[in-house]
């Protein structure tokens, strides 16, 4: 039997007058890479925020490895990591300094070796003494990935991991994530608007709209179930059709 790593039970988030997430429940097994799709403002970031313990749910709970995030936040975050184009690493610190800081924060053993290994893997060796703020978008993105890999997380949450990258760099980054995901011990949740990315990286997809998961399954199954050509077509159908669930 597959081990459940992330279990979301009846999760809701209410911001004063806005219901951002409505009674959401799902489970993600160890080793799965799941895509979280949906239009802007559908509640993807709020869901990720609650999984990371950054946002307190109004109702329901987030269980990570069977432990409630609310009561075990620090211990559970030790095994998780996250990247988003909306957050950055300190610009005035070099790549190595940033990795030293976060490596220590996560209590990484043999940190110098780990940093060397990650810098090699992400092809950052020649920039390691450069300040993060002086790097290109693609290089910064790789540094963010380096920081996300520093604690060898069991659970990796990615919000738009290739946003604003050129196709070549985006493809390179997807390859890195794919490689990380191929290790069956890792569980990944990706929120993305890039359907090719989701099709390439994810075992399954959850489609969100209006704060709810309205469909989920393998990309191919969803495409055929809704009679569409591809995942993007499926996305557009769901987003544009009259909202029966709201």
């Amino acid at each position, binding site marked *: 039997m597959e081990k459940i790593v992330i279990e979301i039970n009846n999760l809701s988030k209410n911001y004063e007058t806005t219901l951002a997430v409505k009674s959401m429940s799902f489970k993600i097994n160890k080793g799965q890479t799941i895509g979280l799709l949906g239009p802007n403002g559908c509640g993807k970031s709020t869901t990720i925020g609650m999984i990371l313990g950054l946002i*307190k749910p109004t109702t329901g709970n987030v269980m990570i490895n069977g432990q409630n995030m609310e009561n075990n936040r620090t211990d559970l975050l030790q095994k998780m990591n996250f990247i988003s184009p909306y957050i950055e*690493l300190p610009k005035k610190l070099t790549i190595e300094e940033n990795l030293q*800081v976060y490596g220590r924060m996560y209590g990484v053993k043999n940190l110098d070796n780990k940093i060397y290994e990650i810098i090699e893997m992400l092809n950052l060796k020649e920039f390691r003494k450069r300040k993060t703020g002086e790097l290109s978008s693609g290089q910064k993105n790789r540094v963010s990935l380096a920081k996300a890999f520093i604690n060898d997380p069991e659970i990796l949450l990615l919000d738009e991991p290739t946003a604003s990258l050129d196709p070549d760099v985006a493809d390179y980054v997807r390859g890195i994530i794919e490689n990380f995901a191929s290790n069956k011990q890792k569980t990944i949740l990706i929120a993305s608007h890039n359907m090719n990315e989701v099709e390439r990286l994810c075992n399954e997809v959850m489609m969100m709209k209006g704060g709810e998961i309205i469909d989920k399954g393998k990309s191919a199954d969803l495409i055929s179930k809704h009679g569409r050509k591809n995942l993007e077509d499926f996305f557009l159908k769901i987003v544009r059709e009259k909202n029966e669930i709201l």
Partner: protein
Amino acid sequence: MKFYRVYALFLRHFYLIKGSFPRLLDLIYWPTIQIILWGFISKFFTMHSDFYNHTAGIILSAAILYDFLFRSSISFNMLFLEEIWSRNFTNLFIAPLKVNEIITALTATALIRTLIGIVPAILLAAPFFGVSLLNLGPALILLLLSLYTFGITLGLLVVSGLLRYGPAFENVAWSSLFLLAPLGCIYYPLSILPDWLQIIAKGLPLVYIFEEVRSILLNNVVNYSSIMSALALNFIYFLLSVFVFYSAFHEARKRGTLINVGE
């Protein structure tokens, strides 16, 4: 509490200062200018005032101590603002850091920043103006502790505001100490204030600290009960500010502001 996590956050700010000479210069520049300015004012008063003429440097001593307080508080605020400005804020809160580890790291780092700024200024005051804080004797340690605790307390309250209201609260970070300075009786005795303001001022540890500084320098008498009153008040305010910080953190989680705090 894990020391390695506290050290990691300290290291983040150490690298920042180490990697930037202008930043280091900025830390030293303002306290030095402040001390030179008050040094000359103090010298003028010493030569032309009956009240101060037997006690060289009473104003300068107060200025140095006030600057120590000011730097403590601003340093604490700056450490937090740096995270907002660099959009690193969310990274810290998804790391396995506990709130008490953040407070400890910021408190320790703020002390280092404060000392980098104030020590050169203190060292300048002796040869240039003949004023040494050591004239305050052993009580100096308790006075500095009291001032530092109050600085951190104000810092915690401002940072709580940043957590609760976001970067818009930044202006309060800069003005918080100026607001309290008139009531703190830094350069003048408590008796100068109107009666009703004296009652309010007595609620501030600053009054006891600076009254005591004047008492030691003018009368050469240490009144430990005043020093203990300041420490006791500081202890209460510090505990209160920690409670406010925890509340602001929980409120920020409720409002979802930890995920998108930035400029």
